């Protein structure tokens, strides 16, 4: 068997980076002078990179993952040469094309065509080289009829398409991609992911910074996990994605627990919430497995007999979108009658189609039955927070029922 010599594409050795973040501006001379008199340094130090070393070989699709503020973006920008390392060295072998943001240097006053050339020049391509790619760029962006129009007349979607189109036609040896590429509408996201797949097959060296473990598992060959500006782990894409979830999930549990513990349930209209529990598989938890049923149990105390009423539950996701509204009353048979003392209601969510996200529950009680007008007597938001984990494929959709995919050849 022929031995393939692995060549290094990027070598990062013991890189440190510290920023001085100016306090209250400090950009003008007056403030500087004031700072001198106050013996105030005028800045605080922030070190996003604390001794990072790793090597990326040619042809690897390398993922860099970590939570917000772990130093991912700083690392990417340092690799791209935008920031200089305070200590350590970064060796790059080949032409590096960074896409930290799409459409860098786009100017609204210029036409689409002129912007293509300007953007190309910023990426290091001559007019001749751009001219050769031009038709493909326009075709991919589907903007034939608009290239002679000023960019300011483009919709934001058109601008993104043009920018992305330039990005994918730019032929560098090493691509640095930030996850910001994968924003936009779902059709565009799909285009990004399709492009990642194509990149992986093409054998080019790619560095991808992302939060999305699905992308890591699907496209990366190797990955690195950053935490507090240090390399926590380097390994195969699967290892790192698992490690990330392992660290991230307890975090969700901790965050939910802290928030839930802080929650004080007020007494309204003679009603007091004693507890709100979420139970999955006989265990009370706030981090739920996807696809499996769970139960929301509301325990409350009333200081008097109220009689017929209703209890409503709303579940909103992290973007404050109402995902589920349910409750007693309405078309349900089991009418609620609020008696004096302790009672509890269980909502059994049989089909768990919640996707991977963090949710909170809003709760309300009303007095009166469906025949009379109802009066709201109790209302509280975020009575409990919980998270769903374990949606592996495309967790960014609003809901996520279990889907089986069958592929048939020929006519079915």
């Amino acid at each position, binding site marked *: 068997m022929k031995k393939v010599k692995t060549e290094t594409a990027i070598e990062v050795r013991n890189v440190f980076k510290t920023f001085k973040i100016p306090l209250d501006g400090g950009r003008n001379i007056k403030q500087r002078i004031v700072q001198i008199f106050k013996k105030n340094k005028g800045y605080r130090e922030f070190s996003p990179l604390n001794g990072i070393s790793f090597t990326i070989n040619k042809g690897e699709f390398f993922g860099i993952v970590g939570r917000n503020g772990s130093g991912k973006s700083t690392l990417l920008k340092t690799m791209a040469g*935008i920031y200089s390392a305070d200590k350590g060295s970064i060796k790059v072998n080949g032409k590096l094309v960074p896409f930290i*943001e799409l459409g*860098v*240097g786009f100017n609204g006053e210029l036409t689409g065509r002129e912007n293509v050339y300007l953007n190309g*020049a910023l990426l290091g*391509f001559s*007019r001749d080289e751009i001219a050769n790619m031009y038709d493909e760029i326009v075709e991919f962006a589907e903007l034939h009829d608009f290239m002679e129009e000023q960019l300011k007349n483009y919709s934001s979607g058109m601008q993104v398409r043009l920018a992305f189109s330039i990005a994918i036609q730019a032929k560098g040896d090493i691509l640095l991609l930030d996850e910001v590429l994968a924003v936009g509408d779902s059709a565009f996201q799909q285009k990004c992911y399709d492009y990642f797949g194509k990149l992986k097959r093409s054998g080019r060296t790619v560095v991808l910074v992302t939060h999305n473990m699905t992308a890591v598992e699907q496209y990366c060959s190797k990955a690195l996990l950053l935490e507090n500006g240090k390399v926590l782990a380097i390994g195969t894409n699967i290892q790192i994605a698992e490690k990330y979830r392992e660290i991230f999930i307890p975090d969700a549990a901790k965050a939910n627990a802290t928030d839930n513990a802080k929650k004080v349930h007020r007494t309204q209209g003679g009603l007091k919430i004693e507890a709100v529990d979420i139970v999955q598989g006989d265990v009370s938890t706030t981090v739920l497995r996807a696809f499996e049923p769970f139960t929301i149990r509301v325990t409350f105390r009333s200081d008097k007999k109220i009689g017929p009423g209703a209890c409503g539950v709303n579940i909103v996701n992290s973007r404050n979108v109402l995902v589920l509204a349910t409750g007693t009353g309405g078309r349900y048979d089991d009418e609620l009658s609020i008696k004096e003392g302790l009672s509890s209601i269980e909502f059994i969510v049989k089909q768990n189609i919640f996707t991977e996200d963090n949710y909170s529950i809003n709760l309300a009680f009303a007095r009166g039955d469906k025949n009379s007008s109802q009066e709201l007597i109790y209302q509280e938001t975020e009575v409990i927070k919980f998270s769903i984990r374990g949606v592996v494929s495309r967790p960014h959709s609003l809901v996520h029922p279990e889907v089986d995919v069958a592929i048939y050849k020929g006519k079915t």
Partner: protein
Amino acid sequence: MKLSNIFNRRNRILLAELVRTDFKLRYQASTLGYLWSILNPLLLFSILYTVFDLFLGIGKGIEHYPVYLLLGIILWRFFMEATNNGLRAIVQRGGLLRKINFPKYIVVISGTISSLINLSLNLLVVLAFILINGVSLSWSALFIIPLVLELYAFALAISFFLSAVNVKFRDVGYLWDVFLQAAFYATPIIYPITMIASKSDLIAKILLINPVAQVIQDARYVLVTHDSITLFSMVGNKLYTLAPFIIIAVVAVVATLYFKKSSVKFAEHV
């Protein structure tokens, strides 16, 4: 950074594209467009002619005074515009610097080059007036080219320094505005240097050591009239004529070192 890299292929491409963009955008929204580069000095000349020649009668001792004045003002305005563009170049492209790595000096050069192009167009108008006024041009008129380059070198050196300082202290732009206003009157542009020389010979000499003044007086000498008093004709010891060049060299060295040192952190500070 190696010196040979300063204008390597990639940097040349980028510079050309940025200059092209600047030029395109310059008169973008105006109906007459590039014509303004020609019209502006033309209108300026009619104002100068009316005010100084017809009404005030300043500069009676200098032949072709309105053209003499026009040339001085155009060179001054070039210096002002180039340094102002240069000063703002880095901060203006801040968004770009944070997203992509490219040689920072390119944006300073591109900012000043568009002023240089504008100056060339303006000089064509001056040339037309020179011919209309019946000035007989000799081959020595070609000295205007090294003179313009000298002025450009000075403006560029100052731009490098100021653009880097501007990243940290945004007040620089305002300070430079005030400084330029003072410098305008300290430079023999609207008044003949003889007015100063008649009061104090020393002050006149000091004023002429200013590279901008030296260039303007020399340019007038080679293009318009030998009535223009140059540094060379004024000082006894001809070694003093090197003074403006020494000033430019010192500014250039300081500016380059400072720019190089601080450009590493532009992306963080801007």
